[in-house]
């Protein structure tokens, strides 16, 4: 074992007011591994960092233990500064003597000094076994796969193609357009949905950089940021794609209100989506219509607001009014959600056009009247407390968007997470279009129900994020960190010891482990670029085959041994 240098920081008295640093230094000097030790006034000052770095070099020490403040205070910055001056990160151990000792044990100077020494010797013992994960660098394939050709996927494809990247646009249906193919006109511009999406769809036809795969099914995705391997079957047959980035724009689906408001039993009780379909066919003669909001949304099971159903009802209510100014149109709601200046104006326009709004309580939902056809709706107006009977020949139920069924399967293949409802999880709150797997981005309703405008904006954003990766020539495993700061390392397998039990494959949250045939046995292979160093595999490995070099079992064992002085050791 090569020598260790120990530097203790007084922090202008903050530490040594409680902890007897000089006695610690004497103890350090007596330690066989320690070749140099010093007590400094303030390690984080540039002056002292310079001095410390040159002292480490002169002492010939290969590793260094810093006793000062916490990583989050200035300790992390001290480590970074030493790394900048050529000392390996894995050779630096940081002991928090200020926040985790001096400041919380003011009344116990002796206990604090004893603890400080234990913490230092734990770090010395741990450093013995700490190694650095070896890095790998892999070139980036400058092509992207986009899953789903709705507004989000189409705008992402267009943005990437405009930047010169080749795009594979994989769509489950036959045509690009997504949900806009199913609706008549779009709020807030009231243009035809097919018009709105036309430039984007045309781009798919015209731009040679966009390859469109209709009727596609993704069979498998393996690989990592910069190099994903995808197997797709589409109307063009089975294909293998190699792409650098994956953008998930697979949208969502409409929840069907079976069992509510006698939907399916009464004629003319339809969903908003069914009304859209009827409008696509042409104008619809309505004398009196009642829209009911939040059907299956903002309740116990689905507490979220789907955001697109209130504006959709406003859109279609006004349309009925415009087609027949004598028609009576009611919107029964719990709250009208129209955030932003444009949608608020949209709401005011509906008011001005004579659409009537009645608020009801979740606990007191409206009731349907009629036997075969709906003849009216009874509702208790929560503002006046009065029961109102509304005659009508059409009831439209606004139901929310819910996640696609195959989200979970896609998430599993990619090592992603879905939220409690099944939408793809973003890195909350700082990276809204990124996921915990490098190189995989999300946008549109696949991530959370949105309007088509927002889906397009998010598509552009996801494309920009993907472009940053696709534009880089290469990625290295240690540069891929999904958490702030440096990546800790990645797990490594000892191929000789591995028995191929597969425990690690089962628990890896990033699908980074897999079994590979090696002669007669199988062994675990860990993808360094997918691994994020959580250590889950390490914990379930029956014979210590998988280890994180930065903190392996020997390091932890050695630290435990030193935790309360040598005497506590076995």
């Amino acid at each position, binding site marked *: 074992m090569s020598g260790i240098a120990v530097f203790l920081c007084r922090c202008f008295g903050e530490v040594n007011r409680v902890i007897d640093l000089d006695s610690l230094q004497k103890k350090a000097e007596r330690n066989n591994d320690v070749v140099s030790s010093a007590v400094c006034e303030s390690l984080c000052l540039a002056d002292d960092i310079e001095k410390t770095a040159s002292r480490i070099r002169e002492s010939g020490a290969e590793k260094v233990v810093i006793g000062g403040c*916490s*990583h*989050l*205070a200035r300790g992390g910055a001290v480590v970074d500064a030493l790394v900048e001056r050529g000392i390996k990160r894995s050779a630096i151990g940081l002991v*928090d003597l*200020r*926040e*985790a*000792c001096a*400041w*919380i*044990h*003011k*009344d*116990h100077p002796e*206990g*604090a000094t*004893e*603890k400080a020494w*234990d*913490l230092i010797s*734990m770090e010395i013992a741990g450093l013995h076994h700490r190694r650095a994960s070896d890095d790998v660098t892999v070139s980036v394939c400058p092509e992207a796969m986009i899953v789903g050709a709705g507004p989000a996927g189409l705008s992402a494809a267009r943005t990437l193609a405009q930047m010169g990247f080749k795009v594979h646009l994989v769509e489950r249906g036959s045509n690009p357009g997504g949900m806009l193919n199913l609706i008549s006109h779009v709020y807030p511009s009231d243009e035809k949905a097919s018009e709105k999406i036309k430039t984007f769809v045309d781009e798919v036809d015209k731009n040679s950089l966009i390859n469109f795969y209709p009727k596609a099914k993704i069979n498998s995705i393996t690989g990592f940021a910069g190099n994903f391997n995808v197997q797709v079957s589409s109307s063009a047959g089975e294909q293998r794609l190699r792409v650098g980035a994956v953008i998930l724009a697979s949208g969502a689906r409409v929840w069907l209100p079976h069992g509510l408001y006698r939907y399916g039993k009464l004629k003319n009780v339809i969903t908003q989506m069914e009304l859209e379909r009827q409008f696509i066919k042409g104008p619809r003669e309505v004398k009196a219509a009642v829209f009911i909001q939040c059907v299956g949304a903002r309740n116990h099971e689905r507490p979220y607001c789907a955001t697109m159903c209130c504006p959709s009802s406003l859109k279609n209510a006004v349309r009925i009014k415009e087609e027949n100014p004598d028609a009576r149109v009611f919107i029964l709601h719990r709250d009208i959600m129209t955030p932003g200046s444009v949608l608020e104006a949209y709401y005011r326009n509906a008011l001005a056009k004579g659409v009537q709004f009645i608020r009801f309580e979740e606990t007191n939902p409206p009731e349907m009247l009629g036997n075969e056809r709906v003849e009216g709706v009874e509702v208790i107006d929560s503002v006046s407390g009065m029961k109102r009977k509304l005659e009508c020949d059409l009831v439209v139920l606004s139901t929310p968007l819910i996640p696609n069924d195959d989200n979970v399967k896609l998430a599993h293949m990619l*090592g*992603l*997470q879905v939220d*409690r409802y099944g939408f793809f999880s973003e890195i909350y709150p700082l990276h809204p279009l990124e996921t*915990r797997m490098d190189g995989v981005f999300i946008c549109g309703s696949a991530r959370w129900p949105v309007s088509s405008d927002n889906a397009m904006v998010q598509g552009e954003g996801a494309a920009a994020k993907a472009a940053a990766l696709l534009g880089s020539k290469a990625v290295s495993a240690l540069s891929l960190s*999904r*958490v702030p700061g440096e990546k*800790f390392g990645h797990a490594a397998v000892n191929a000789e010891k591995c028995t191929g039990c597969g425990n690690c494959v089962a*628990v890896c*949250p*990033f699908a980074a482990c897999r079994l590979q045939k090696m002669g007669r046995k199988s062994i675990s292979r860990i993808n360094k670029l997918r691994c*994020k*160093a*959580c*250590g*889950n595999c*390490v*914990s*379930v490995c029956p014979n210590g085959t998988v280890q*994180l070099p930065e*903190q392996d*079992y020997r390091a*932890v*064992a050695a*630290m*435990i*041994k030193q*935790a*309360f002085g040598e005497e*506590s*050791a*076995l």
Partner: protein
Amino acid sequence: MKILIFACKWCGLIGADGAGKKRIQLPPEFRVIAVECAALVEPDAVIRAFASGMTGVAVLGCHLGGCRFNDANHAAIKRLELLKTLLDATGIGGKRLLISFGTAHEGYQYAEVVKTFFEELKTMPSTVAWTASL
């Protein structure tokens, strides 16, 4: 009293830092090992800690759904809860293993968790006998 705390860098360790910044006073008889994620805390390491004479071991991780590593802490909780039943069976006592996820992120929470654990351990039988026989 000898307590060993495994603190995840993204929750427990932030709490430890916060407790320090707030100068919350705690008894000194505990040591902290920082880990990248609570999932790295091997059951073997916990057992080793008890075998080395710890009175109690605590594992502090992020709340469920808040793990930086997808659902790694979920798996960790399950493993450690299972270990608790084994500790009960061996006579060490499952209560000597404190599993706390998402409850020690703020300084005052961390301090409370540590203090309560000290109090809890004080009410339990002494471990001197079995550590002496080791």
